[in-house]
């Protein structure tokens, strides 16, 4: 082999090079067969849709999906031979399944928007429902009191369940004490508690004993019971992801175990722990039964978390959606839309908070 050296004369030619993605090039035969495999089933189903009265879901699931599978299989066989068929079956199914979940999500949001948008207005968000009856037109009143109630209750629930949940996760992953299997078992069992049972529990031991009224605090306690297992289990998972190198690294610097957990392990898992909190909030924010029992209902805006029954968005929806007045039903749908937007805002907020990186 001879030695080659860099040739300056070739430089100009090299500088003319254009960047591309050669791995994306496909033979014409591939493009043609894939196009046919996509177009033919779609056209067939469209024709059936226009000429017959087979219901759309059956058309899609019973006719379109198998047809698409077969067409993709043929296309794959034509371009890659038999080994392409299994590939295409998996890909078509994966795309189909993800499309299905997107369709479900979009239709849920769509139905909320269609039925609830009519109720939305600034006063709907900020006014309460004092002097408002189910038959009052949408020009008056709102769910400000329920929004405040939901936020207050979720805040109280987080205040209780987040520290306990994280502490539980720390016990399981960091302390690794003898009771770990039992703690884990109970956390797991707790995540199976039906929400109505949590509400009943708080109703009996907090409200019925006269310790507290139906209130944001009692509702928060019920929510905390439901949030705790989600927070604890998610936090456990993310703490487990923190590499042991960091723990031994901290200990080797003369750190105590407590400082290692507080200053190294938890900060390293910060994003994940924030996710744990969001998942906990998302788990409870729409729960209705515990609040019907523990928090009650109110048309006024209540800010005192201990004093009196308080409204919340889920209970507001529950109380209005089945009424025989179109405007009340519209308010319920509007509230549901607001609730889903609220969850979206909380998620975004948490993502932004969690993204904050070290340094500038």
């Amino acid at each position, binding site marked *: 082999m001879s030695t080659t050296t860099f040739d300056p004369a070739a430089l100009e030619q090299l500088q003319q090079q254009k960047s591309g993605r050669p791995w994306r090039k496909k033979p014409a035969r591939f493009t043609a067969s894939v196009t046919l495999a996509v177009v033919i089933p779609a056209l067939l189903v469209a024709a059936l849709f226009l000429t017959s009265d087979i219901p759309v879901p059956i058309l899609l699931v019973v006719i379109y999906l198998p047809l698409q599978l077969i067409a993709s299989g043929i296309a794959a066989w034509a371009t890659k031979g038999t080994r392409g068929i299994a590939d295409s079956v998996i890909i078509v199914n994966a795309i189909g399944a993800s499309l299905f979940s997107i369709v479900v999500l979009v239709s849920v949001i769509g139905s909320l928007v269609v039925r609830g948008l009519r109720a939305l207005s600034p006063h709907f968000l900020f006014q309460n429902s004092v002097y408002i009856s189910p038959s009052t037109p949408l020009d008056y009143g709102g769910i400000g009191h329920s929004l405040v109630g939901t936020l207050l209750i979720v805040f109280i629930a987080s205040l209780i369940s987040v520290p306990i949940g994280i502490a539980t996760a720390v016990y399981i992953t960091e302390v690794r004490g003898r009771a770990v299997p039992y703690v884990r078992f109970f956390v797991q069992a707790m995540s199976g508690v039906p929400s109505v049972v949590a509400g009943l529990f708080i109703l009996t031991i907090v409200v019925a004993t006269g310790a507290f009224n139906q209130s944001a605090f009692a509702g928060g306690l019920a929510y905390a019971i439901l949030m705790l297992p989600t927070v604890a289990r998610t936090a456990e998972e993310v703490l487990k992801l923190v590499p042991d*190198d960091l723990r031994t690294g901290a200990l080797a610097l003369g750190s105590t175990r407590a400082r290692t957990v507080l200053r190294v392990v938890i900060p390293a898992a910060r994003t994940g722990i924030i996710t744990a909190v969001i998942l906990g909030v998302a788990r409870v924010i729409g729960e209705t039964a515990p609040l019907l029992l523990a928090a009650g209902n109110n048309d006024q805006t209540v800010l005192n978390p201990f004093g009196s029954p308080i409204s919340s968005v889920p209970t507001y929806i529950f109380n209005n959606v089945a009424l025989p007045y179109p405007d009340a039903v519209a308010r319920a749908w509007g509230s549901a839309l607001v609730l889903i937007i609220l969850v979206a805002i909380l998620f975004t907020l948490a993502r932004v908070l969690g993204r904050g990186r070290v340094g500038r």
Partner: protein
Amino acid sequence: MSTTEFEGVMELDIEGIEQSALHQVSPTEMETRDLSVWFGRRKVLEGVNISFPKQTVTALIGPSGCGKSTFIRTLNRLHELIPGAALAGSVLYEGKDIYDADVDPVHIRLKVGMVFQKPNPFPSMTIRGNVLSGLKLSGMKRDNHDDIVEQTLTAAGLWAEVKDRLGSAAGDLSGGQQQRLVIARALAVQPHVLLMDEPCSALDPASTLKIEETIRELSKEITIIIVTHNMQQAVRVSDYTAFFLAEEGTPGHVVEQGATTEIFGNPQQQRTLDYVNGRFG
């Protein structure tokens, strides 16, 4: 001068020579006595007796799985964190057994620092934060944090590269820089002994050279114990070498130890000769 006087002087001199031979050049900082180590019921190290003189570099060499890393972790009591770990014999630091009931492992780890095989800077902290993390984590009070950051990063050979971006995330540094950062972090708590477990195994030759220079420089102040698979590195950086070996199914033990020049130049055991010449392991 009478004969008796003369004899007295002679005797004294001989004792002096014997003592210096016994204690080598400098007094002992750390030593292990009949140290044996288990994981569960499996004995991984047997009867290790090594002494580490103050302000010297000792290299621990030997094939993978012979217990070098396990050994080094017994010296700062990290070994005990592994479930099922057990130990017999003693590890003396400044003449006192670090496994005595009244010894707090946190104090030992402050005096006996460690640098690991894989760089492990704390991802949630800045470069500066990482250097000072030892002070925060151990609750040690030292003034002039700016000086500490500059001194330790200079000692670790990283200052010039990072002095303008002390506030950026430690994870943004390259592997070699991260390793020098964790060396600086270990130095900030002013340890007397620094354990290094294959500190250069993941680094390129240039970074390796920088770290070796750092080791030579540091050994003027502190005692360094380094595990390495790189024979040339052992020769370049160490004053003393201990050769570990775990033969087929038996626990690891020290085959031969002594001055590095002796171990590499004139080993007494055939196995040592074979190993340092790369004939096995």
